[in-house]
């Protein structure tokens, strides 16, 4: 008998069917992976399991008995604990306070600090994070450490079923390996794990069973390893999966002055002596494991970081970029598509038009007064060019889908006709259809003469889009792959070989 069974689960939000007749079977002592595009129903599914929302139809069976959860607390009591993508940690409180936040041990009505600390230390150990001090304030910890604390917090509730929603996205490579070990140990202890991830290698590494969701339905359940990646992706997008990347034109090494050149760029301990050259018409990718300084490099170029040393040259002339307002000036012509479109790329309550025109407002106005007609035309042109699916341009940007929101962010910068385009993981959390459109767009922009530098956590993207890939490790560029050298194997092995090299050097 399955530990947990979902049958015929349906959920509607207004006119939208988030889930339709979904099925899921979870066994104790197994890791079950859930795959699917954004909007496929995965997050609704786990919200139902975790008691955050209630289903319209269908049954959930725990140990064969029907259950329903009115709140997350009820689900927790039943032994189902979920680690969401957005961290639920309180920054100003200590690790111990956070781990015991919902039900602290008490003595005489007050919180028993010593018992709480013991509880925290146990949970941290179980999560493989013994090195985190229970009294440390969460806001002083790195993102990766915080994710570990989040996992410890979930384990402290003694779950029978643990749900992880993109739980490894923020972890450093070392922590990811630790977490694999932890999850496998938990599996051996009899815990049931539900694992949602976009990363195929993780699924291969961990999963025993997989279920694919597409358009709100569970379209396939199979034992891990019995389907190829292509088959899985086809199930996810529900159509033929062909090479989605636009063809690259063979390029001879350019002898012209580099559009962008870096010489010995350093910043705190995150960026170490980086030198690179970016030519017009090139698409260069930043590879390597997550957290090696790729994001910081892009921010440094855009002028957001203080205390950088080294030289930056645009078209051969040294420049001093002190901030985004300087970077976007015509002589430099830089644009940055930031990491988080909702909080860094758009003003969600403002209209599509206002968001699109915001970066280029200076060009659309004279003496500080906005030329409404010019703005309207420019906005309409971009909406057409990028095929942004929206109900007119006066709608709030927040009402668009994730993919269309990202198009707004890109469109905003396209209005500036940028000559150097920096992108920070531009296709994260976006559906496959929009991803393809973005790849084609990048190639077209490069053909038109822009120099593109982008960071991606997706190996397929780096392989498919880039002319060159710079693999980073520990804040420095360790390897450059050119043209046909760029393969998934080469990318992974470069990232890992470096690990092996440094370990050997340390051992010597």
């Amino acid at each position, binding site marked *: 008998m399955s530990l947990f069974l979902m049958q015929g689960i349906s959920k509607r939000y207004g006119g939208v069917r988030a889930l339709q007749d979904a099925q899921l079977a979870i066994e104790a002592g197994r890791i079950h992976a859930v795959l699917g595009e954004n909007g496929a129903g995965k997050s609704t599914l786990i919200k139902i399991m975790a008691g955050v929302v209630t289903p319209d139809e269908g049954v959930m069976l725990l140990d064969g008995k029907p259950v329903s959860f009115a709140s997350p607390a009820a689900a927790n009591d039943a032994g189902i604990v979920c680690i969401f993508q957005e961290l639920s940690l309180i920054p100003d409180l200590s690790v111990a306070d956070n781990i015991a936040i919902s039900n602290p041990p008490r003595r005489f009505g007050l919180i028993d600090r010593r018992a709480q600390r013991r509880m925290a230390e146990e949970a941290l150990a179980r999560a493989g994070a013994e090195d985190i001090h229970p009294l440390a304030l969460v806001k002083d910890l790195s993102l990766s450490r915080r994710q570990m604390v989040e996992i410890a917090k979930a384990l402290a509730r003694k779950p029978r079923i643990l749900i992880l929603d993109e739980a490894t996205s923020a972890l450093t490579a070392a922590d990811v390996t630790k977490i694999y070990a932890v999850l496998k140990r938990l599996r051996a202890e009899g815990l049931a794990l539900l694992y949602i991830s976009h990363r195929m290698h993780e699924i291969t590494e961990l999963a025993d069973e997989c279920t694919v969701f597409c358009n709100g339905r569970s379209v396939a359940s199979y034992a891990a390893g019995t389907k190829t990646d292509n088959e899985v992706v086809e199930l996810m997008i529900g159509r033929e999966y062909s090479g989605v990347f636009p063809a690259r034109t063979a390029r001879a090494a350019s002898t012209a002055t580099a559009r962008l050149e870096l010489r010995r760029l350093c910043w705190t301990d995150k960026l170490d002596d980086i030198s690179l050259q970016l030519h017009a018409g090139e698409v260069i990718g930043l590879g390597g494991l997550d957290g090696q300084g790729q994001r910081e490099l892009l921010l440094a170029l855009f002028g*957001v970081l203080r205390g950088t040393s080294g030289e930056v040259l645009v078209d051969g002339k040294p420049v001093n970029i002190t901030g985004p307002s300087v970077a976007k000036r015509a002589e430099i012509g830089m644009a940055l598509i930031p990491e988080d479109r909702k909080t*860094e790329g758009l*003003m969600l309550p403002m209209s599509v038009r206002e968001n699109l025109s*915001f970066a280029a407002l200076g060009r659309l106005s004279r003496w500080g*007064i906005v030329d*409404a007609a010019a703005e309207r035309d420019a906005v309409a042109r971009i909406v057409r060019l990028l095929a942004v699916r929206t109900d*007119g341009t*006066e*709608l709030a940007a927040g009402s668009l889908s994730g993919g269309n929101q990202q198009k707004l962010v890109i469109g905003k910068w396209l209005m500036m006709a940028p000559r150097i385009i920096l992108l920070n993981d531009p296709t994260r959390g976006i559906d496959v259809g929009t991803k393809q459109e973005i790849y084609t767009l990048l190639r077209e922009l490069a053909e038109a003469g822009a120099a593109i530098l982008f960071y991606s956590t997706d190996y397929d993207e780096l392989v498919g889009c880039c002319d060159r890939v710079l693999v980073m490790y520990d804040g420095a560029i360790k390897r450059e792959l050119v043209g046909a050298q760029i393969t998934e194997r080469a990318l992974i092995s470069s990232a890992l070989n470096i690990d092996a090299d440094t370990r050997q050097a340390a051992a010597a």
Partner: protein
Amino acid sequence: MGRPSGAEANTLTALRSRIDPAIAAAFGCIVLLLLLGSLYSSSFLSPQYLLQQLKVASFLGVIATGAMIVILLGQIDLSVPWVVAVGGMMATAATGWGPLGQALAIPVGVACGVALGLVSGFGVAFLRLPSMIVTLAVNAIAQGLMVVHTGGFSPQDSSSPAMRFIATGHSLFGIPNALLVWAAVGGAAVFLLTRTTFGRTVYAIGNRERAAYLSGARTRGVVMAAFAIAGGLSAFGGVLLAGYASKAAQAMGDPYLLPAIAAVVLGGTAILGGRGSYLGTVAGVILITLLQSILSVMQMEEFGRHVIYGVVIIAMLLVYGRGRRHSD
């Protein structure tokens, strides 16, 4: 199903958003108050009385304009009380400096307010300090300066003729000058907020400063300018008040801080910034002014006025100023 074309869709959205429930509610309450007032006194609805109300509202209106711009940024300006006083006192002081001083009285008063606003703006924009405490400190400094300036006594200088003219005079079919001044200030504010890059950036900063910064907007300059404008408008309000009373007075700005904030919020501007239209502020100012005058027409004792004032504000905000629930 045919989706409306781009242009049609835009018009629909625009229509829906134009009928802002907050502004509608505010104007509805104004009508209610007028009817209520007419029950107490037949002359309540007379044009002279209404014009008088609008004249009194103008002083608050000018001050509330500055308050609104700062609130749109997502900040707050608690320096209003003494910047208003600075404006009045400096303008009257300049009047006493001979004919040149008399001519420049109004600009001098406003300039002092702008200077104080720049200090606040610097603290918020460059030092990244919370505006609540920065403007509190500037308020304290302004008070300190005025105490030293007047020696602790009531200021004896009188206002210049120009000041008296714009505050108490009538022109143009008997419309009070103060009202014309407010209309001019309001018109400029509307233009600034809706048609300029400055205004667009103010709304952007109020919505999401980080995104505005990363889009290359000059956020620091805009914030400083906004506070400078607010300081200038507060001081200008003080100039008008001094013109109305023919002289300045200690603590003349104290009664204007909370009503200014209340007027802005009652007009539908979100206290957290990023949303609001000037029409709403106009409605809020008129509403507050009418409320205060009805309470005095009803010859309600002072305590009753304070209680009703507070209750009405809460009641109106409960009707349309509420935030979202977590489960939304």
